[in-house]
């Protein structure tokens, strides 16, 4: 059972890390720019937050299948395939929440920075710093989305014992087998994990807040 929990954590943490690397710069762009393209992309990111995981799973599975365009990579029913699907699910979430936080950074502050000769990169870094509490929320949202997701990881991971079986897919399996005891036990662990991660992130957020007030 703990192997399943460990797999869940490993896959989700890697996926969220990649999603943050891709989603935060994208979110900064979306939160800072004012253009038609940006508006369209922002709508896309917000809509992407509701991207149905089963659709992501289906498309990823088809692409990675032996008969699919990426079949030669031999990735279907492996952990990297699960990470790929989860990154696709998490990137819009991270980007949209980051964008919301970045957009709430006062424009005057950015103007001030510019007038002092800050480059675009400097300005972005400044916004990132000011919006760091929102970043924590972005990470929490991304993590929550992937750790509790079941449709996509079932389709691209295959729930293989000892390699791609994660908490959510194991819960589905135990339920199908009529073994509600282990299913409930795993559900409790999953819930506890989500609470722990959010508590840690809330702590980070509070210390960021304290730093801001000092």
């Amino acid at each position, binding site marked *: 059972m703990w192997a399943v929990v460990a797999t869940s954590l490993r896959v989700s943490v890697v996926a969220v890390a990649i999603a943050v690397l891709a989603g935060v710069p994208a979110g900064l762009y979306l939160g800072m720019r004012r253009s038609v393209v940006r508006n369209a992309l922002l709508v896309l990111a917000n809509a992407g937050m509701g991207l149905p995981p089963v659709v992501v799973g289906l498309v990823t599975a088809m692409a990675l299948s032996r008969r699919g365009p990426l079949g030669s990579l031999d990735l279907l029913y492996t952990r990297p395939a699960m990470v790929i699907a989860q990154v696709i699910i998490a990137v819009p979430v991270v980007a949209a929440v980051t964008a*919301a936080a970045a957009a709430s950074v006062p424009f005057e502050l950015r103007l001030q920075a510019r007038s002092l000769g800050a480059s675009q990169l400097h300005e972005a870094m400044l916004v990132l710093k000011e919006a760091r509490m929102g970043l924590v*929320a972005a990470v929490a949202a991304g993590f*929550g*989305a992937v750790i509790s997701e079941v449709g996509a990881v079932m389709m691209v991971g295959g729930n293989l014992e*000892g390699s791609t079986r994660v908490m*959510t897919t194991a*819960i589905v399996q135990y*339920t199908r087998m009529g073994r509600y005891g282990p299913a409930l036990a795993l559900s409790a662990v999953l819930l506890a994990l989500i609470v722990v991660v959010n508590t840690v992130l809330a702590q980070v957020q509070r210390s960021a807040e304290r730093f*801001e*007030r000092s």
Partner: protein
Amino acid sequence: MTDRRIWLAKRQAPVLVAVLLAVLLAVLLAVLGGCSSTRTESKPPQQPKPPQRIVLATTTSTQDSGLLDVLVPAFEKAYPAYTVDVVAVGTGEALRLGEQKDADVLLVHARADEEAFVAKGFGIERRDVCYNRFVLVGPAADPADVAHASGAADALARIAKKGSPFVSRGDDSGTHKKEKSLWAASGVKPGGAWYIVTGQGMGETLKVASEKQAYTLTDEATYLTMKDSLDLSLLLGDDPSLYNQYGVIPVTGARNEEGARAFADWICGPEGQRLIGSFGVDRFGRPLFTPNAPGGEKS
């Protein structure tokens, strides 16, 4: 600058609170959503006694093969007073649903468990309905040479000896139970990197076997239905130890016991048996299931 920071923090606070609330709500919804979807799967909503609804718990193999798509509409046409809701799960959960009276009638294939179910008083009676056969499928190259095995047990022993990948359902389903009994007969205790366990239904397990170019044990119906999307060949099927008997059990004291009995009688009767015997002939040139209900029409 400190004043400015406080002002900034104040200005950001409502937004952040909103974002955090949204996140919490999303997590909560995701969790609750997960729970409720599991619940609908295992416990159909309890409506105030709709007499016309029959909950049929059956195995994924009858669903995946398409047999129920033929049987259910025909039954509903013959008995317009009833509608059948199909819950397709593993034999293990199907029996559990019956024990909890969440299902009215069961159509499953694990004879010993079915007889124990009736003996414990959960079911009214168990009747044979039909049988199909299990087959061993695998990569066309057949590295373990199971096509020349003397039987299913020998074939599994060859796979284990060669260390060729083998995909197991591992879900306590009728198919998994059959697989375990065949391993026991082969004298090999399967395990190791070559033994892949999906814990999923037949369709998904076949897909995994195809992707991994591994052997697997499947009911012939599901294999034939999915054959075109798989890179797997039928390697072994002519062995009496591979026959797979389906039984029907109306659940004792079910919400719709009358409907459950009607369904069991109908599926074992002339029309049900005729439909089972002709299912698949148009697509595969021969029937996928052989009807053998006592007193029913033989094909």
